[in-house]
């Protein structure tokens, strides 16, 4: 079932011509002529569409929180700061179907009666920035953006904004600060962006894949979308699979209909070199690892949560039996320490000290009790002690690898990594 990756295999799918030939902007035409803004919100609510960025918040709910009576501008912001390790799904939409995203953005703007959309794309996505910017120019020319869109009387401008390299700007309020030209520091909530967002005004912030899912909902109806997938998880999602599988890549699949094992074996052609699975990260670096006994979990929010992890950004990283889990945890912890914005002490200090201790496991000098110290640090970092969820995400890899692969840690005491710190046996 393909919704947001429907056009990506077509030659020049990123051009307006190919997009229009394949039905992009038809939903916008329909919406502007047949629906009032509030009806769009109701339709998206009824569809059960949940955010595809990581937190899984209902999109229609987010839209309905935007007060339309405050005499201030309202903004729609598309979060295209895709940087959760393992995640490369939004990039395909940005590069190969930017018009679908623009259509979703204008629909969101129409629904909340906003006249300005920003698409915030991470600065490293050079081709995405180029393709989306070109598509925006085409869309203005064709009357899908600007004044009096398609003769409806609705005005909407769209600006592409490039980030400059910071994971934390994928956190929605960090993104807003960045868009305001500041360091990307997440904000205390409440107030939520729906009420006090960009430039202090009501703001809707949605992930790329979420917004790109909106046109099909208007085309085929809320009931249709809600009937796909499973309870609490309607529609398909793009699973971005990386690591030790034969065919890594993007797989757009209906939620809840496929297990992790089927994803690996049937869709990704099984494990490389016929090896066994050792561990899998199901939803990006912030989500706890699953082990080889947990592969029969279906891929939807509730089922994965029941296993103690999260669906997150549906970035599936698969590791085979040769993988050193201490090293995997070190790489991710070093990442979080590097990306912590530094506002909150538990996160700034916690990620740093966890990295230091994991380095000790890696390079020698670790003691057995260091595992307890790591768990202790993790406990002090998480559970709402920080402004944003980075710290909670950072403890996932630490805690889950200690719980599930204690032997890996023990084998590092005290001499360091028996595999000499390499995750890969390929020699160059």
């Amino acid at each position: 079932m393909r919704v947001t990756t429907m056009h990506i295999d077509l030659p020049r799918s990123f051009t307006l011509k190919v997009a229009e030939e394949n039905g992009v902007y038809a939903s916008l035409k329909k919406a502007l002529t047949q629906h009032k803004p509030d009806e769009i919100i109701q339709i998206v609510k009824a569809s059960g569409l949940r955010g595809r960025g990581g937190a899984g918040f209902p999109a229609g709910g987010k839209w309905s929180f935007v007060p339309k009576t405050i005499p201030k501008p309202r903004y729609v912001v598309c979060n295209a700061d895709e940087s959760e390790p393992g995640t490369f799904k939004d990039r395909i939409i940005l590069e190969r179907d930017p018009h679908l995203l623009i259509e979703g953005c204008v629909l969101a703007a129409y629904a909340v009666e906003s006249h300005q959309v920003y698409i915030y794309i991470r600065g490293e996505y050079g081709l995405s920035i180029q393709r989306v910017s070109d598509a925006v120019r085409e869309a203005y020319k064709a009357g899908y953006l600007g004044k009096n869109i398609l003769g409806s009387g609705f005005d909407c401008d769209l600006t592409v904004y490039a980030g400059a390299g910071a994971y934390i700007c994928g956190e929605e309020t960090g993104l807003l600060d960045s868009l305001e030209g500041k360091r990307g520091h997440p904000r205390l909530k409440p107030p939520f962006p729906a009420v006090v967002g960009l430039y202090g005004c009501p703001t809707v912030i949605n992930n790329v894949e979420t917004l790109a899912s909106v046109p099909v909902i208007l085309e085929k109806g809320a009931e249709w979308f809600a009937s796909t997938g499973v309870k609490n998880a309607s529609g398909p999602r793009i699973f971005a699979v990386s690591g030790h599988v034969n065919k890594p890549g993007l797989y757009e699949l209906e939620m809840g209909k496929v297990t992790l094992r089927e994803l690996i074996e049937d869709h990704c052609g099984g494990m490389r070199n016929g090896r066994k699975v050792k561990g899998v990260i199901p939803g990006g670096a912030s989500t706890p690892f699953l082990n080889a006994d947990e592969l029969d979990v279906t891929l939807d929010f509730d089922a994965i949560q029941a296993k103690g992890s999260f669906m997150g950004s549906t970035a599936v990283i698969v590791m085979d039996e040769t993988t050193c889990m201490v090293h995997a945890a070190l790489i991710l912890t070093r990442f979080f320490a590097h990306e912590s914005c530094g506002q909150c002490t538990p996160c700034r200090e916690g990620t740093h000290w966890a990295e230091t201790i994991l380095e000790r496991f890696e390079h020698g000098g670790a003691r057995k009790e260091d595992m307890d110290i790591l768990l202790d640090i993790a406990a002090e970092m998480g559970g709402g002690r920080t402004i944003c969820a980075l710290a909670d995400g950072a403890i996932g890899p630490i805690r889950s690898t200690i719980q599930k692969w204690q032997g890996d840690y023990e084998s590092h005491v005290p001499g360091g990594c028996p595999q000499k710190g390499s995750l890969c046996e390929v020699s160059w």
Partner: protein
Amino acid sequence: MAHLSPETQEKIRDLKDKFPARRSAVLPSLHYAQAELGYLDDATLAEVAALLEVPQSMTTEVVSFYTMFDRQRRGKYKLEVCRNLSCALMGAKQLTQYLEKKLGVELGGTTSDGKFTLLETECLGACGYAPMMMVGPYFYEDLTRDKVDAIVGALAEDRDPPIRPAGFLEMDGETPKPIAKSSSASGEIRERLAVSKGKP
């Protein structure tokens, strides 16, 4: 002392009132400045702030936060290798070590001819096509020794790599923008090197 070209100055002035708040123009302006000069020194940060008519603290505080901004002169071509988990599982460390040996520099270093700077980055969103590196605006993915040799070999002679960057599919018939440059940006960098070091 002003050192941004009149064209870049104009582009930055144009951004001044493009956003509801002046400050939003800071990041794009710094991108413009770095594209021209290759890096952002104190004088450039002051100049950008002056063009936007904002306090200099507003440019200084962001360059120290975002990793894409360079505070020091880099080589003509930055080779940025992703070091995060998916790439590490597929040989990112080996790729970096190979590049260190091939270029004769350590990670973070610049070759003595000023041509290449070798850097590691965090996840760049190419996890299914690992290992990868970023060169300028483009990604090179599914890297092998042969591909790396071809890319580095071409850039060493200021030719564009014979390998298509990621996202440029044959069926689209699109040509990537040239990354091998004799462009003003690198020209500018070399000129400054000549001033400070006495050689190109």
